[in-house]
């Protein structure tokens, strides 16, 4: 087994520009592959000479390849977004907790994504769609800034065909957009949820997750049925550097997927 303190070499096999600042890269092992990941987990991606950042895996589990969707917001992410097929990057991981903890077999699975938050949820969605009959309903509600900033837009039809109910909304659009305009929480009412049978996975900006979780609890979901994906400064991934603390949680080990019952009081404390 590889030492997850050392970057393992992976080669970019494909690159897709999702939006003007977001790229999805697929990686194949250049040497031995690292351990299999579970939906919701993240890797530390290393760009030679630039640095390393935590990125959730955004592709389906159970394959040797790794897919990551990266938004260019700094030096390392910009470098990874520019990586061309054939280039080698470093991968450490997998780290953290998984959406698998939110299982509700026989019940309904609700995924609510805000912006690029759809990327860490995608493995959970693909995993659920690959197990027909495991859930009664699979519902995806996704919000984005504008139609041009929707990620994986080309797949929504495929997901619907595979049995997911997909609701999409954007914050702003012009008249060429035939879909909904409004905040993602406005889609919740349209989903006609069965609150006691639903497990909800939420991923997006922290404020969006708080608001969405509140809307869901207002709709009758118990807080313990809601799971969110939290983020803090992440460096080692092995619970040894101390940066990713949120109160009693070390998010590289006790997160990023955290049950809302545990997260809610922590998120309520400013500057925790």
């Amino acid at each position: 087994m590889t030492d997850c303190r050392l970057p393992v070499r992976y080669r970019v096999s494909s690159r897709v520009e999702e939006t003007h600042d977001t790229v999805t890269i697929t990686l194949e092992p250049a040497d031995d592959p690292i351990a299999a990941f579970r939906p919701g987990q993240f890797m530390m991606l290393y760009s030679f000479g630039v640095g390393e950042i935590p990125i959730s895996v955004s592709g389906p589990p159970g394959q040797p390849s790794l897919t990551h969707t990266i938004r260019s917001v700094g030096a390392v992410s910009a470098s990874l977004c520019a990586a061309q097929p054939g280039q080698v990057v470093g991968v450490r991981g997998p780290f953290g907790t998984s959406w698998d903890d939110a299982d509700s077999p026989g019940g309904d699975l609700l995924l609510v994504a805000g912006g690029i938050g759809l990327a860490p949820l995608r493995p959970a969605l693909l995993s659920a769609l690959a197990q027909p009959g495991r859930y009664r309903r699979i519902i995806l509600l996704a919000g984005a800034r504008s139609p041009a900033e929707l990620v994986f837009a080309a797949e929504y039809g495929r997901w619907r065909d595979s049995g997911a109910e997909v609701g999409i909304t954007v914050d702003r659009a012009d008249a060429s957009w035939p879909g909904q305009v409004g905040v993602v929480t406005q889609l919740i009412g349209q989903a006609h949820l069965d609150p006691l049978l639903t497990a909800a996975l939420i991923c997006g900006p922290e404020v969006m997750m708080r608001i969405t979780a509140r809307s869901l609890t207002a709709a009758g979901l118990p807080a313990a049925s809601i799971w969110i994906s939290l983020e803090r400064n992440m460096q080692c991934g092995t619970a040894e550097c101390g940066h990713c603390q949120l109160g009693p949680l070390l998010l590289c080990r006790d997160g990023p997927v955290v049950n809302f019952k545990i997260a809610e009081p922590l998120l309520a404390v400013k500057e925790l």
Partner: protein
Amino acid sequence: MSVISAELASHRFAAGLAAGQLDRLAAIATSIEVPAGTRLFEEGGHAASVWLIRTGRIALDLHVPGRDRLIVETLGPGDELGLSWLRPAARWQFGAIAQVTASAFELSSAKLTGLCDSDHELGYQLTRRLLGTAIDRLQAARIRILDLYASPSAAVGGL
């Protein structure tokens, strides 16, 4: 209870109203079909109606010179369309167009206002519901203003 009364009772906006109140509301409502692409009103027009959307989707839009029309918000089943009629000037701030074929109850704002003036209990109930709609839309709009999905590197002035 008339056909429209029964149908109104199942609409989220009217849910919980007493039978008599539903009847009085139904008496001033008509059931309409709005084919996709039909414009219900233009920005600046006289705000003379209120709609309770049953099916389909209506887009509130705004014309900006040099740009394609912008969609402010889309409303769907259970939503109430039209708030500007509550103001004295009663002019539409935005336009409204059916994105997909829709059906709705249409009420004259003048008759609705008259009904509320004469039946204060009904007026109170409707005002509370309209206030709830306004609150929800205000909160949603405030969230969108925060532009939470924006890239951190694009933030200006620390926001």
